[in-house]
């Protein structure tokens, strides 16, 4: 299974490079349309669970165990990562949705995945995710009794080179352990 996941990394890097951060407005999902979609069981809720895995010396965890959402609502969730090493490290995250059929309806508006993220030495950072579940999930006959969706993230170390400036920067801003000089 890990072999297959590793194969995805360069593929998704390719995706990111083609769209970038400021994608054209016409390609953006129109959230107003999603939010107003009419569905049969309007009051059905789903509990989204968050899990994580880290294949690198970062502590990487979700900051909430689960969030209860209604399909169509945009939801903010957080993960946290801390670089345990004495030097900057670049990671790249992938995510997976369970059950597999639910993945079709799970839409990320913005997150921290697929693009490389660099953490400075010993840095701890907030990693937000903004997502929504497409209301069409309520019309999918395979998922009528679905109460729980699991969002699972995994961080891999990227083999990209850290720009030289950052290597020296972390040393420069590291706390100085000199004794304070007292002026008498």
């Amino acid at each position: 299974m890990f072999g297959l996941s590793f194969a995805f990394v360069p593929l998704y890097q390719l995706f990111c490079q083609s769209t970038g951060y400021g994608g054209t407005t016409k390609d953006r999902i129109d959230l107003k349309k999603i939010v107003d979609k009419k569905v049969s069981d309007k009051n059905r809720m789903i509990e989204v669970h968050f899990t994580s895995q880290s294949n690198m010396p970062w502590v990487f965890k979700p900051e909430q165990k689960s969030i209860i959402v209604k399909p169509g609502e945009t939801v903010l969730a957080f993960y946290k990562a801390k670089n345990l090493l004495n030097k900057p490290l670049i990671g790249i995250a992938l995510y997976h949705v369970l059950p597999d059929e639910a993945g079709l309806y799970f839409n990320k508006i913005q997150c921290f995945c697929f693009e490389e993220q660099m953490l400075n030495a010993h840095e701890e950072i907030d990693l937000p995710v903004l997502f929504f579940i497409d209301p069409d999930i309520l019309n999918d006959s395979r998922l009528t009794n679905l109460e729980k969706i699991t969002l699972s993230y995994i961080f891999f170390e990227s083999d990209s080179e850290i720009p030289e400036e950052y290597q020296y920067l972390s040393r420069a801003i590291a706390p100085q352990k000199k004794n304070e000089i007292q002026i008498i």
Partner: protein
Amino acid sequence: MDKKRSIVKKPDRGSFLLDHNSECTSIKNKYLKCLKKHNNDHLSCRNYSKEYFICRMDKNLLERQDLNELGFKENELDQDSRIKNFKDVYSYNIKMENKNKLK
């Protein structure tokens, strides 16, 4: 090898910029605290999510945009947890389904 194809889509608007100076961390903490208080029902904590995005926009960690584009509706108020009176999502859904059947 397992041939099940799982669908993973790239995010619509890419990645969030990293908040290296933890400028919006305090608001994030308020949001997380609110979630715990309201049984993880996110709608009760809508104001904090809004505040978080406003903070990001103010600190140039997010492109300036109308909150509607992030899925927030006009006059959306923090509501009391929807499932506060239910043990879990399952019991809430069953109750709602029965309610709909009676109509």
